């Protein structure tokens, strides 16, 4: 058990964890709501250490991240647990854990930060991503690994629900290159229909902070679930937020929902719904709005906002054609803000 970062001690051997915006006050012997940070005798520890539940070499497009070293392979790691409980979670086998200690040791692979970086070099990955479940609760591990990864010239990617506090971003920001964040809705009520949280504005604040303070590359993902968060007027508010606070070149991924878990009775999102939202995004001034999880759809390609030519052709997570250089359009020279 490693001692946790980002917590403060309170009286009566209680601690307040300041890693995510729940800021749990944890009594001696208890855990936070994520279930993987535990108070032992007035000190907070993480139960996750180096326990990896799953890892794989993926193209960065799978995260999805489209405007950062397109086509590059990224070695991705996931652990156990989550601080959210989204209905219909695709990765519920690793995110919803109750009995942690025995699960973690029996079914995990222990891959230390050093080993993770070595593996990335071995597999010739261009970067490391923490994904599959929520990396925020794996903070200590991802922080150490990110520090080592940067030394080796690897890039680092957080595939996150955005629940990290500003203190968390302050700490890891210097070693983090990509913040690919889920913004699931643009109202407290809709957010709570997906997962109960106190204040979704904190997710927006954290994302803006990451970009402004550390110039971290941000991409926003919204998984559209029919009848739950598909209200186009509400999503218009989100489009405006991205344009005004993150920049009109920030990629927005509108992804198709597939039924899982307690949302198994819902249908997959109609493609027309996704197309309408994507078109609305462009109307509102965003330059790059993509549709995800619809294989072969033309909206998974990148079009130059100026000359309208297709500059990157993708097939699923594969980059098939790339007509950009130094982040600019090959045809007209327009700056697309693509990092490579």
């Amino acid at each position, binding site marked *: 058990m490693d001692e946790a970062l980002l917590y403060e001690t309170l009286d009566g051997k*209680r601690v*307040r964890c300041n890693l995510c915006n729940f800021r749990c*006050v944890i009594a001696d012997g208890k855990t936070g*709501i994520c279930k993987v940070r535990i108070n032992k005798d007035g000190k907070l520890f993480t139960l996750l250490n180096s326990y990896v539940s799953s890892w794989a070499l993926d193209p960065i497009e799978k995260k999805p991240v489209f405007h950062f070293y397109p086509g590059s392979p990224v070695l991705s790691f996931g652990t156990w647990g989550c601080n959210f409980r989204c209905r219909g979670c695709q990765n519920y086998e690793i995110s919803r854990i109750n009995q942690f200690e025995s699960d973690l040791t029996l079914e995990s692979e222990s891959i230390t930060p050093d080993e993770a970086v070595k593996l990335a070099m071995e597999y010739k990955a261009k970067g490391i991503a923490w994904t599959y479940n929520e990396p925020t609760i794996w903070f200590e591990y991802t922080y150490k690994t990110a520090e080592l990864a940067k030394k080796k010239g690897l890039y680092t990617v957080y595939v996150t629900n955005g629940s990290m506090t500003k203190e968390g971003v302050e700490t890891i920001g210097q070693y983090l290159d990509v913040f690919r964040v889920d913004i699931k809705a643009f109202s407290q009520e809709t957010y*709570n229909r997906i997962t109960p949280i106190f204040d979704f504005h904190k997710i927006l604040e954290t994302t803006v902070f990451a970009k402004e303070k550390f110039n971290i590359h941000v991409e926003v993902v919204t998984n559209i679930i029919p009848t739950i968060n598909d209200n186009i007027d509400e999503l218009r508010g989100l489009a405006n937020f991205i344009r005004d606070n993150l920049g009109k070149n920030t990629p927005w991924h509108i992804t198709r929902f597939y039924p899982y878990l307690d949302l198994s009775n819902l249908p997959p999102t109609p493609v027309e719904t996704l197309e309408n939202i994507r078109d609305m995004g462009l109307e509102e001034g965003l330059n790059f709005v993509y549709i995800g999880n619809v294989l072969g759809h033309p909206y998974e390609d990148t079009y130059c906002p100026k000359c309208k030519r297709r500059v990157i052709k993708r097939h699923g997570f594969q980059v098939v054609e790339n007509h950009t250089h130094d982040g600019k359009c090959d045809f007209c020279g327009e700056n697309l803000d693509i990092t490579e």
Partner: protein
Amino acid sequence: MGLLQLRTGDKIILIIVIVSLVCGISLRILFANGSSKIVLIMVDGKLFEEIPLSVNTGHNEDILVESKEGYLSVEISNGKVRVTDSTCKDKLCIKEGEISKVGDTIICLPNRISISIIGENSNIDTVSY
């Protein structure tokens, strides 16, 4: 010959029985301090946590209560209890304000959480609301 002519062994057993009876009763009396109040937090009808409600100033407790439906934060300070934040829609539990008397209850129906103050000394059986 006396009625109670007991052997040593029997005397010992008798003493043990009497002593344990006396101890048991006095322990019950000792720990039933009349003025103690307890905050009872129930989730979905089951006990979540029991916290003694002391009137000491300066001693604060924040508790994050978790249910299948969502969360709420309870603050206990200076002998008063209130809900400071909740993921429910109506936030009626927050509007309820603070409670401090035996029999008072704050209920968050959507979250299925109830916070009540119970005590030994109350003569109120229940409250109609």
